[in-house]
């Protein structure tokens, strides 16, 4: 293995990793503003890209007109999820909340399958298929653009959590009851976080499906999103970005070498191993807040 191959694996890995961060950002957003671990993020990514395609087909408009419509729809859907599913679960044990998000995951996945069918379709958003040459290293344009969008979103959210509304969301995450008592509308805050997260999921869905097409495998991005979110710390946006890059490089390089030994398909194993090791060594992640438990 020469150094150029290593470099190519690493740089492509970092770019793919930033696209994982797009999925992870949604999870982090919800966790940071309502302490709910969202296992439905993968299904929301998938649903978002199906909705984009659905609008493009129904109204017979270009993809670029369908995307804003889909973003609005998903925003409303996020508010709806909070209203219907999560409002009554506030304060319940975490297993109920996890199971609820898993139920949402199954529901969204099978609903979009039964409406649009399981065949994979392309999503053409005008990213050229030509490789980008960086010296001797080949890069994929779609990954470069995805990574760029991830960085832009990161900047927006860092700014957002410094605004008044962002601080409100952080207060809600800290303690529901205390937020209620100082007059914060917890329900609205949680709804807002779900809505933003659904929008981010749609953006991630569009970018990912421009790489691999729109089908059910989009929802399996959940494992990678969760791994990135945990590695970076579940309530740290910067952590999600850095962990995305780290995981991408690690996954790309490790599976690049491992695949030759075990005969392919080692990507998921590398990701799962990263998740377990992270949790065993440093459960709160790289930059997450270490909660102290009271009896």
């Amino acid at each position, binding site marked *: 293995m020469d150094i150029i191959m290593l470099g190519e694996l690493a740089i492509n890995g970092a770019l793919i990793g930033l696209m994982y961060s797009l999925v992870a950002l949604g999870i982090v957003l919800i966790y940071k503003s309502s302490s709910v671990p969202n296992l439905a993020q993968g299904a929301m990514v998938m649903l978002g890209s199906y909705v984009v395609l659905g609008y493009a087909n129904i109204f017979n408009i270009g993809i670029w007109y369908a995307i804003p419509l889909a973003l609005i729809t998903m925003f409303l859907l996020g508010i709806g999820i909070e209203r219907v599913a999560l409002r009554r679960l506030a304060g319940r044990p975490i297993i109920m909340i996890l199971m*609820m998000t898993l*139920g949402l995951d*199954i529901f969204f996945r099978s609903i979009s399958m039964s409406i649009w069918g*399981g065949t994979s379709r392309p999503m053409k958003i005008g990213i050229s298929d030509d490789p980008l040459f960086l010296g001797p290293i080949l890069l994929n344009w779609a990954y470069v653009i995805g990574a760029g969008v991830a960085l832009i979103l990161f900047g927006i959210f860092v700014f957002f959590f410094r605004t008044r509304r962002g601080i409100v969301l952080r207060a809600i995450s800290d303690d529901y009851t205390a937020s209620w008592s100082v007059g914060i509308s917890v329900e609205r805050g949680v709804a807002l976080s779900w809505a933003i997260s659904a929008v981010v999921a749609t953006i991630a869905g569009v970018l990912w499906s421009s790489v691999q097409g729109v089908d059910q495998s989009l929802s399996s991005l959940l*494992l990678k999103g*969760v791994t990135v979110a945990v590695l970076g710390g579940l309530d740290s946006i910067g952590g999600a970005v850095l962990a995305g890059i780290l995981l991408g490089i690690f996954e790309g390089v490790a599976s690049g070498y491992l695949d030759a030994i075990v005969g392919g398909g080692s990507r998921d194993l590398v990701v799962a191993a990263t998740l377990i090791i992270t949790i065993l060594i440093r459960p709160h992640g790289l930059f997450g807040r270490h909660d102290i438990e009271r009896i």
Partner: protein
Amino acid sequence: MFFRQAGVYHTKYAEDRTFFPIPVDRWMVSALLLLSLIAPFVFSSLALSTYLLPWLVWTSAVLGLNLVIGWAGQFHFGYAAVMGIGAYTSIHANRFGIPWELSLLLGGCMASFIGVGFAFAALRVKGLYLALSTLALQFGMDWVISHVPAISGGTQATLQAPPVYLFGQLLDGEISFYYIALAWCLIVTIFMLNLKRSSLGRALISVREKDFAAAVIGVHSFYYKLIAFATSSFIGGVSGAILIFTFYRAATPEQFSINISIELLAMVIVGGLGSIIGSFFGAAFILLMPGQMNNFFAWLAVTLNAPLGIETLSHIPNAVYGSMIIIFLLIEPMGLGKLYNNLRDYLLVWPFGYQQK
């Protein structure tokens, strides 16, 4: 009137500790036991082999999962992997020449041994992080099972289960398989009923409520977490092996994938956390519902004259299954077991109910 408590006096401690102090409960349980014994001669062979047999095996697995989630309060997102370990171990042991009964036990012990690995995650973390790490372990197990040819015979392979010899007697046909499943389910149920009133069960419950507080009053919480994981993995491993030997008759990696883990969790949630009768209800509900829903939607499509595509029809049961989880969590978080208890509580005093406010 039916559940009459008058005349039930506890004059000895042993009477106070019986499973079913109320006579009607005893009658109902005996009737159910009798029915389950004569079921092969009452129900059609189709109903026996496609509904009753898998229901009993899944129920035993759900009881095992309920032990670790409902009693010990620890998450387990990788229960299907544990079942898979048991199934593959016992098939390989049996093919190697070890008698069937012993290979079942061996499968259970192997599952228990590896399942304790899940508990070491529980040593450091709990709650959400434990859930995620068991989820990751499930993915890892999936990968190992499907990618190591020595275990599964390759990614696409199916592993035929050898014929079942119980004490040298060839067991064949669904009736004998049904009795195996019934026997295992009864063993697990009796174990769980006993667990409820033993010191082990109480220790597990104290760990569930708050492990630090349990440690303060002298319950070694990590030790009990290990026991919970080991026991439930043993039950899961043997259930997985019995599932393969009596129902599927061949093992493929997909039978123990992450979706099955989630399905088992759904059975526990729908049935009710920590409820034994709820485990029976939950398993039945999740097993039977998709087929019934499929028939219902096909019938609806024909009656409404709105043709649904095959693909749509095949995914609707899943959508209903997801929405069932959501609806149960919203309306009755403690599941069908709690609904049964509500009904029973109502009947305990019927017709002289308390004054409604």
